[in-house]
């Protein structure tokens, strides 16, 4: 049982959620496309027209700058605690990459944009990855007990 308590932050979490939603709305406004981290990243590493890669790279730069802007405004870097071992992180990352490609999306694409469009495909995808993630954490923390 490795769980360490984290603070319940409903207001900041809601505010952050509103900004995530706003970014999705802005991308639809400017480019007419769904905001999905999976699609942005896979378009960056696989072929395609060169002009297509520059806006994707710009978006990634903006994303990475996000926590630095928070640091500049508040004087505090948002907390990033990683309670798992490095090998598990690497295994998890690889598995996520495989899954989101075959599942055609992740939390942003299916869980936010797809659900907001009332897409049955995204509803099934979101329910599936949420349930499996909850089950996985249950098994790791309470059955295997690491």
């Amino acid at each position: 049982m490795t769980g360490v308590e984290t603070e319940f932050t409903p207001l900041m979490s809601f505010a952050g959620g509103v900004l995530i939603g706003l970014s999705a709305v802005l991308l639809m406004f400017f480019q007419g496309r769904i905001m999905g981290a999976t699609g942005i990243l896979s378009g960056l590493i696989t072929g395609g027209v060169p002009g297509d890669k520059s806006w994707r790279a710009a978006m990634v730069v903006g994303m990475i700058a996000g926590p630095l802007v928070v640091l500049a405004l508040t004087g505090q870097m948002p907390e990033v605690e990683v309670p798992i071992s490095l090998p598990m992180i690497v295994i998890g990352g690889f598995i996520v990459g495989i899954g989101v490609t075959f599942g055609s999306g992740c939390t942003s694409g299916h869980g936010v944009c797809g659900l907001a469009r009332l897409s049955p495909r995204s509803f099934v995808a979101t329910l599936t990855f949420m349930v499996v993630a909850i089950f996985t954490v249950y098994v790791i923390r309470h059955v295997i007990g690491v």
Partner: protein
Amino acid sequence: MRILSALLVGLVFGVGIAISGMINPAKVLNFFDIAGTWDPSLIFVMGGALLTTFIGYRLVLKRPGPIVEAEFKLPTNTVIDARLIGGSAVFGLGWGIAGFCPGAAVPALGSGRYEVLAFVAALLAGLWVAKMIQTKQADRRVTA
């Protein structure tokens, strides 16, 4: 305009991920740990994001088109198949192991932690391998 707007979208997204707590794997894993150190904060992230996108999309999609492209490009695939469910299940497994999803890991790179770099490198490797498999499958379908 396309690059500037993408930078702005990324920045708003990155700040949102950072202040929401999605950037923190400890918090994400606690959201999944209903039977243990449960932290329900992420329900509020989903709530805020869905509410904003639901209303915002309806306003934006009433317009004749987007600013820098000719038309809106919305997904048209409506098939619910084994690939969608299987892929999503595999994603859920990885998310439950590592506590990062792709959209949270990229902004987390800004924290400068080496674990995040390791996750993103493995994520990109997974994306690349899966794309290769999909391309091979598509080729086989063409030649068959």
